[in-house]
């Protein structure tokens, strides 16, 4: 279970998160939607404590991240998989080494065992037999799937996805959605998906939360969100150019 309480984060003078409260149940998939640059990725990075909050608390599996020692945090991070937006593969390592990175760094290094396990994870995302390529040789969609393989490699309890379907073709996008659903159904993984792809959101979500101006302004199941009367959410999920979101923007100008 992940619980976020009163999280605020300011970059320079720009308040990105302004008191975010969110609860994600164990084994459920929560989709966080919102416009580009509204702080969705920032929120995600707080859950693995890559970013530290200005104020507020984050609890993962009942543990307060503030109170953890470096070692405890390391152990906790091993149970969390994070899929970065651009893949964030290490370009000096092969695909196989990227996927098996945790094993190289944290267990006794056995190259053969490592590559077998990496291959297994790669096959799960539909990329058998590319373990020896370098990340630079892959297409954008493949990089995303390799990043996914890296995240699921250590059989984590929690997987965080940062825009997993952005910038890939519709078929790959759907297969990524299938994969997220499968992990959820079979392995009971707790997932947090950050996206602005509504089709993907409806497909995988148990719960959808909308982040707007640093706050969660709406929460609910797919059906509830689709039926919402909230003008901001309504404009966003239907992708309308006219509405309260764009009006505020114009007022700023």
């Amino acid at each position, binding site marked *: 279970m992940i619980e976020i309480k009163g999280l605020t984060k300011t970059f320079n003078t720009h308040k990105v998160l302004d008191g975010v409260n969110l609860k994600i149940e164990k084994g459920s998939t929560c989709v966080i939607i919102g416009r580009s640059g509204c702080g969705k990725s920032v929120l995600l990075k707080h859950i*693995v404590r*890559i970013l530290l909050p200005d104020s507020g608390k984050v609890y993962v599996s009942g543990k307060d991240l503030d109170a953890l020692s470096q070692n405890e945090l390391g152990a906790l991070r091993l149970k969390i998989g*994070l899929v*970065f937006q651009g893949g*964030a593969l*290490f370009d000096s390592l092969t695909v196989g080494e990227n996927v098996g990175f945790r094993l190289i*760094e944290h267990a006794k290094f056995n190259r053969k065992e490592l590559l077998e396990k990496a291959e297994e994870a790669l096959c799960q995302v539909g990329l058998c037999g590319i373990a020896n390529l370098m990340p630079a040789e892959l297409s954008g969609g493949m990089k995303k799937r390799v990043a996914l393989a*890296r995240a699921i490699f250590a059989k984590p309890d929690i997987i965080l996805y940062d825009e997993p379907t952005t910038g890939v073709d519709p078929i790959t996008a759907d297969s990524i959605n299938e994969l997220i659903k499968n992990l959820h159904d079979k392995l009971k993984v707790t997932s947090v998906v950050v996206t602005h792809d509504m089709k993907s959101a409806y497909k995988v979500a148990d719960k959808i939360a909308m982040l707007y101006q640093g706050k969660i302004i709406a929460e609910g199941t797919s059906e509830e969100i689709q039926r919402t009367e909230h003008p901001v959410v309504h404009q966003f999920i239907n992708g309308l150019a006219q509405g309260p979101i764009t009006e505020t923007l114009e007022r700023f100008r």
Partner: protein
Amino acid sequence: MSTFFIALGKRVLEFLYFLGGLTSMAARAFGWIFVPPYKKERIFEQCKKAGVDSLPIIALIAFFIGVIMALQTAYQMQRLGSEMYIASIVALSMVRELGPVITALIVAGRVGAAITAEIGSMQVTEQIDALEALSTSPIKYLVVPRLLALAIMEPLLTLFANFVGIIGGYLIVVYRLGVPSGMYRHITFSALLYKDLFTGLFKALFFGIIIALVSCYEGFNVEGGAEGVGKATARAVVTMFIMIIACDCLFTALFYFILL
């Protein structure tokens, strides 16, 4: 007038901020050196990149510096008819001063800039965040091998530069000015004391550490894509050059007035 003071204050604050960040990273890096697992291959790889691959350019420049030193001192020494003392001037200048400084400047430009650009690119493509998310300390994974490699290789490269520079001087003095080869060798060795070598190598070690820390620090603090990487690399090289020359001045004064 007030804008001048505001600008000045900003600069001072920026500098203090830089110094604080660098010190805190240095402390963490030195701490992580002693935390297992120790990955020797990674240090060797960096030693090759920083040290072995720098040999040709350092040989070339050190050789020219030796030749130039010999010619320049010959210009004055010939008037006094004491060409043979060129040997001791070249040897002492190379070992105490030029060897360490020239090597450090070359390594800062060649290796330090590459480190900033590499780590900076990793920062903008979220690879540094990915390291943390995979519960690997970026300091342990990226900074420690580079720090150790540069601390080891910088003195070795300096020794090499000293040797090549003295050979450059030898060629000019023996083959152009007609000083006997045995005489040149004798004067070189009798002029050099262990303390000269020690002060030079001590500086080199210090410069190596400066290059590793500044280049990594600037790389980690890159913001804003490819342009940011370019800016950070330029800033890193300028900072390293200033720090190398300033520290050299400080050490030379220290060794001259107090210690030796």
